[in-house]
């Protein structure tokens, strides 16, 4: 029976996202205050409103995205379920994958901001917000499958 493993996104990322958003919001406010003497009042108000709407949207959407995201990997295919309003199911046959990119950001063992990108001709598939262990595990499974495929092709030729 074929082994298949499922992964969900790391919940820690929501906490760290709120921290970063707060920092970004503080920075934006400070920047707006610094330029307030040079810009008309209307522009400042509009910029403030747009920024507030963006932040609120992100604060609502990001946790939902993390809660909903699900990735399933076996030796033949990878499946991704992502999205907040637009729910998207992706199927990637590993036969078409040419390479795998693993992105481990600094301090990601705390934050959970790790990504795995599957590179196929004409398409890229991104598994976002994984723990380091998950990201390494997924990369290993897929790279093993690619190695086995290339060995089989070499034997056949």
């Amino acid at each position, binding site marked *: 029976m074929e082994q298949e*493993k499922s992964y969900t996104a790391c919940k820690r990322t929501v906490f760290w996202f709120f921290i970063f958003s707060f920092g970004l919001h503080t920075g934006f406010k400070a920047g707006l205050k610094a330029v307030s003497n040079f810009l008309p009042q209307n522009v400042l108000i509009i910029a403030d409103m747009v920024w507030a709407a963006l932040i609120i949207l992100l604060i609502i959407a990001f946790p939902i995205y993390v809660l909903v995201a699900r990735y399933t990997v076996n030796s033949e295919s990878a499946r991704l379920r992502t999205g907040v309003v637009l*729910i998207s199911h*992706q199927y*990637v046959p590993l*036969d078409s994958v040419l390479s795998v990119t693993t992105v481990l950001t600094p301090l990601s063992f705390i934050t959970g901001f790790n990504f795995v990108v599957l590179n*196929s*001709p004409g*398409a890229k598939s991104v598994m976002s917000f994984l*723990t380091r262990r*998950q990201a390494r595990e997924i990369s290993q499974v897929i790279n093993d499958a690619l190695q086995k495929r290339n060995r089989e092709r070499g034997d056949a030729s």
Partner: protein
Amino acid sequence: MSGTEGTAKNLRKMAKTFLSFRQHPVKIVKYTTKYLWLLLFSLGKYLIAMEFDIAGWLHANWFDIMIVVAIFIFAFVRWVTVYFELAEDRIIGHTGFLGMARTVVYFEEIASFSVCQGPVAYVLHSCQVYIDTDAKCFQSTDIRIDLTKSRAMEIYQLICKKSQAQPGFVFRTRKRQLFVFSLLFTSAVSGAIVLLTILYQAYLITDAEFEKRLLNEVNNHIQNIENSGIGIYFLAAGALIGLVWIMSFTSNLLRHWAFTCRPGEDFLRIRSGKGSRRHHLLRRNYINYLDFTQSYFMRMFNICSVEVGCSGYGKRRKEISALIPITTSKDAVASARLLTPEYKMCNPQVKTNSANIVGYVIFPLIAAAAALAAGVAAQYYFPERRNQIIFIEIMLALPFFWMAVVKAVAALNTSMGFKGSDLTLSYCKWYTFHKVLLKKEKITKVTVRQDPFSKIAGNGTVFFYTTGEKSPRHKVAGVNYKRALEILKNNGFEVTPKGSPKDIQQGVEI
């Protein structure tokens, strides 16, 4: 004497060998910067202003002249260092900056080989050679070199020497049919782009004086016509559209004049063009899909054209990846069957219906309504510009109304169907209808998407991804969600994972 003759003979032989693996000398001029002509015009202007006093001109412009000479020396050095080598089964290109990049391409890996020769290149007996594989390398083409026509055709013959042309069937365009269909169905958009590009390039090369004089001339003519009582804006727009239509029509016609496609065991050999001549070799194994395309009017009259998705073909500017240029749908289907028998059409297994019309037309109608509303608001704030605003309002809203009509037809004709290893998709993208024939092994990813409104209606959108120069993604919208998932699952694309959401924890084995 014989020694001298021998030396001369050796030198000639060395020169011949040296030149045979180098690009055509016209490439030296191409290696100079595009904007060198601005500097040369400026120098020429000074020379004329100084009444051809060469000494004085050299004294005044020595720095600019040094720059020009340095550019030409650099171009010459680059020409010397960029060369290629031929072996029995491969071509090795030494390209890039001072020939630093060495690319080895085996003939077996070549997806497409193209030889293009414009009218100026024809006079100089040179042509451009493009060699593409399926790999996405640093530059846009694996190997790109300018050679003499005879040398390029030698390589062409070397690549396809093992593959014999299949006797019997050769597809040729019927010139009268091509002329009439191009006349009736040419799009004005590409012509408009050509016209604007020409004006912009002319503006860069000359100074703003030319532009002012041109606009004054046009304005004078328009004012004369205005006295007759005709709305000048409609007249100006009509003249522009007429002009770009003629340019687009002529360009399309010349591109596909004398188009032939000859199927071989491993390759399709395509020739086309009047003015600019093109030869293409497309390897069958690297063809990703066939695309039967038609506009709304072409659909009404059962006309279509067939494009082929193959790495490198259709990549160049203004190049269309045509397999069968504009012809009747019946001819296109029959010819495609003979040229590429491995691609088969399948019956639809899931299809949209009249219930999907609202979903298809809603966004174009909203956009059209927004354009009209913006026009009404603008008329309120700028009543003195009422005529101009109404004109712009109509010009903005018309394309969206037309899109709504096209999308309404698309809502009844979108489908997908599998049979064995073949897949057929019918969909509409912007204003063009597509019927795409795919092979399952060429599909690199499948995505099924559902928004809240589609979820209520039980519909979804399916995306198929392949390798492609222009359209790697094919979108089939508004099909029944559950039926689509079932069909995909039955054909090896199980998009939704096994196991219920409750079973899913971090790293659970199923």
